[in-house]
């Protein structure tokens, strides 16, 4: 009996990677209230960096280098393009178009370089050992590592945002830039920091993503709309909503899809439709996603239902 367990393991693995990617998207969205369509390219850059460096150093270090490079790219994206544009034009639509073009430029640049050096489709050197194997249910190192890494990152990011002064400043700048700048917080610097963190998360996610599938110039772009769904479930603003969204997408895309494939015979080629449908449904029914739901309210609602 492989079906549910196999899919569940894959769902958890992909869900944790999606939540890493989507968290970065949510963080950048909060800095300027515009979705960053170039976020996928941060993942591609991470994937390529780790795939190339894993030939020379251990995969762990390669991932760290990937995180650094992606973080740097994320910061530069804000400093060079989005920040100035936000100050000068300030129209959300223009920012969206600009990030879209930025993504296109980076994607084509990566593809151009990859074409020259003949690395259009590579794999990082990663020894994927089997740790547990019971009746065909396989838990391997990749699963453990990506789960550990994503949770370590999420928890430390959460602690950083909640406990440290800098984290508090960042949250203040994201929630109300005007008020924050009155209080003497350099909102621009905080926004740059958010983009750097977003790049870092994307770099780590991209590094594992590359080990999971292959690395091509389009990995990030192909994943973009999928983890957008996770962010949309979180209302594009909520930290925990986004993490939950990542897992929801992971499970919908794997467990639910496999279930539909086995029970109804729907072709797995329609797999990417799942996150798209989720985006459509969430946006049409509840555009604020999980962000608007207050935990207390939900609890009291459930209690009320019980009594009734």
């Amino acid at each position, binding site marked *: 009996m492989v079906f549910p367990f196999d899919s569940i393991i894959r769902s958890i693995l992909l869900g944790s990677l999606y939540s890493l990617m989507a968290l970065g998207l949510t963080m950048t969205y909060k800095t300027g*209230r*515009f*979705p960053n369509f170039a976020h996928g390219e941060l993942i591609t850059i991470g994937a390529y960096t780790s795939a190339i460096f894993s030939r020379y150093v251990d995969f762990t270090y390669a991932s760290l280098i990937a995180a650094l490079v992606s973080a740097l790219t994320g910061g530069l994206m804000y400093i060079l*393009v989005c920040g*100035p*544009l936000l100050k*000068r*034009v300030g*129209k*959300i*639509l*223009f920012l*969206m*178009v*600009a990030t*879209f*073009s*930025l993504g*296109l*430029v980076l*994607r*084509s*640049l990566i*593809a*151009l370089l990859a*074409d*020259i050096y003949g690395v259009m489709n590579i794999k990082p050197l990663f020894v994927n050992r089997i740790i547990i194997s019971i009746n065909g249910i396989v838990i391997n190192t990749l699963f453990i590592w990506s789960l550990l890494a994503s949770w370590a990152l999420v928890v430390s990011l959460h602690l950083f945002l909640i406990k440290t002064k800098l984290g508090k400043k960042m949250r203040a700048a994201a929630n109300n830039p005007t008020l924050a700048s009155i209080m003497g917080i350099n909102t621009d610097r905080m926004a740059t920091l958010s983009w750097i963190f977003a790049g870092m998360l994307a770099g780590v996610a991209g590094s594992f993503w590359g080990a999971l599938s292959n690395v091509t110039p389009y990995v990030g772009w192909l994943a973009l*709309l999928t983890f*957008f769904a996770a962010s*949309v479930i979180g209302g594009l603003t909520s930290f925990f909503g986004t993490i939950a969204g990542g897992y929801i997408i992971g499970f919908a895309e794997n467990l639910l899809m496999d279930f539909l494939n086995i029970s109804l015979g729907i*072709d797995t*080629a*329609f797999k*990417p*439709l799942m996150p*798209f*449908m989720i*985006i*459509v449904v969430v*946006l*049409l029914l509840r*555009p604020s996603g999980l962000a608007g739901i207050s935990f207390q309210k939900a609890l009291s609602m459930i209690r009320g239902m019980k009594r009734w």
Partner: protein
Amino acid sequence: MVDIVGLISSTVIIFSLYSLLSLSLNLEYGYTGLPNFGKVAFQAVGAFVCGAFTAYAISFIVGSTASIFSPESVQIRIEFSKMNILPTVTIFIVSLIAACIISGLFGYAVSKPALKLREDYLALILLIFGEILRLIVRNYYPLVGGTHGLAAIPNPFSWSGEFVLPLYSVITIIVTLLVFIFLQRLLNSPYGRLLKAIRDNELASQVLGKESVRIKGQVLTLASSIAGLSGGLYAFYSSYVVADDFIPQKTFDAWLIVILGGAANNKGVLTGALVITILDRSIQYLSGLVRFPFEVNYLRYIIMGLIMIIILYYKPSGMIKEKPVKTPAVQVLKHE
């Protein structure tokens, strides 16, 4: 010896296709403020309709029972279009009209739920709509052959031998001019002013009793049918449709033309289309002369993306600025 006629006519066709798509985007984004990031979907609908309709119609007329994707059907279509002038042209015209209508219906269907959303969500949902459509068509074989596509959609002028492209370019440029004149007439009227009012301040226009959601729906429907027209013309030009042709990069091309040329100014959009066509062609021409160690399309997208970012930063109003609506009332004011 360079084929001058072929070069000019293919340039004219590409210019017309770019212009049609960008004019329809300009109607949505420039005049009404609808951020349509899924423009390519409506073009795709037109192309699919034209491709499938033509193929099925010819199979029906000839009485062939073979699948429209089989090599013999391809042969039948090529032979048929060379021999029968009148049916081919009729099929061409009918399928273009069908493409317009069906794309318009798609636009209307999408507008119903989507237009209640905020600007960024609307853009996202239209982008997603385009991808959903592409994905479904890609994995649904009977319409246009899934990933393999549908080949040999006969050009309406196949019978004319070497004059296929020149004749076709005349048709496309005439269609483009007609659409341009129609849009100029439509938008230099109180209706055009109404669209701009909705774009600039939706709440105020609602206060004045304008049903903004309904009017935006009309705009999306009309613009989608124009996009469908461009898709249909594209299908007959390339004589091959496949779902993976209609990727979001095409939407980006239209956006670049509109923003480069000048939003809410149709003449600006035509200028922008001309610039991009020339850029496109010269990169293509250059790739014939110099052997690049990479695919030229990447270079094209890098240049286009950089142009877009620079334009957005330094001159967001585009090459030709928006002008006031030329209704008769404005002209009377000018004369006094």
